[in-house]
């Protein structure tokens, strides 16, 4: 006989278990895990390059892409420890992929690990990777309407970076709209303007990261 049963169970249960595994790995080693989320071409890899070029902060990277190891090659060329994860069609990373990647890395002396998610403003937000912070990367050419169009990301972000600010004089990007919408979604979120080409804003970005590292190491 047919009957209806109450289930009330999270759809994300399997991912949550693995995310917790990653979290506990990072907790034990005092590693801050930062999940970088932004559109394809928003400047996520270039931001990591600039972070290395314009500061002394030590970090490692897990690169997520649908195909190719191009991003990992760019990071590797800087002498930064990196593992490339390819999703072969998948539009986001899940905790099992990060869990596998950290097992392949030598994280001795590393207190900051970036996961550069697959370029996408929707799907990556839904999957907990065990990160301490999601960081939203929005570039000037994408336009100022992104926070309200993709509210989940901007609400969840532990920091929001506006990249390619050198293009502000040439494009009709209304920064007041961007900041006002962001304030509605995430009132106290750190908001940084960055030009990875000349290092503008990298100092503030690194100070934020160092604060996160200090906070975690003192816990």
């Amino acid at each position: 006989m047919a009957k209806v049963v109450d289930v009330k169970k999270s759809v994300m249960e399997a991912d949550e278990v693995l995310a917790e595994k990653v979290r506990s790995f990072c907790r034990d080693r005092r590693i801050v895990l930062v999940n970088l989320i932004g559109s394809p071409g928003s400047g996520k890899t270039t931001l990591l390059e600039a972070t290395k070029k314009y500061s002394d902060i030590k970090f490692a990277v897990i690169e997520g892409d649908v195909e190719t190891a191009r991003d990992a090659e760019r990071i590797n060329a800087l002498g930064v420890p990196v593992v490339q994860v390819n999703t072969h069609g998948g539009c986001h990373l899940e905790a099992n992929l990060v869990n596998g990647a950290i097992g392949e890395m030598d994280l001795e002396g590393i207190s900051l690990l970036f996961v550069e998610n697959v370029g996408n403003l929707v799907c990556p937000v839904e999957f907990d990777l065990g990160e301490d912070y999601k960081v939203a990367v929005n570039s000037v050419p994408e336009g100022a309407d992104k926070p309200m169009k993709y509210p989940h990301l901007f609400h969840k972000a532990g920091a929001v970076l506006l990249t390619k600010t050198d293009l502000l004089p040439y494009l009709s990007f209304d920064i007041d709209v961007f900041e006002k919408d962001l304030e509605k979604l995430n009132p106290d979120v750190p908001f940084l303007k960055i030009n990875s080409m000349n290092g503008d804003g990298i100092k503030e970005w690194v100070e934020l990261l160092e604060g996160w590292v200090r906070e975690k190491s003192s816990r």
Partner: protein
Amino acid sequence: MHEMSLVESVIESILDLKEKNDWKKINRVTLKIGKMRQVIPDIMEFAYTAASQGTELEGSNMVIIQVEMEFFCKSCNRRWGEEDMAFICPFCGSSEVEMLHGMELEIDSMEVEN
């Protein structure tokens, strides 16, 4: 298109529950999904039909109940919805705002045969 990943996870959970409870057949699974979750119900239901083929769940269907966003201000006790999507109270300006609904992502119930 993260719906397929979600569906795979749901199928895994259902098969697990089916085995544990010794249910003969699953007719229907109902999910509650908040609007903030950016899931498209049609795609999700289609993905379920596709992914359940060839499994013990073939022939069953998925129903999605979308949950509207609802915000609550802890300072002035007022509520509002998606039309004023904000974590700052549109009435009193406080940032003591809680999202009551809109983040749901759960298997709510199932119709089963035993």
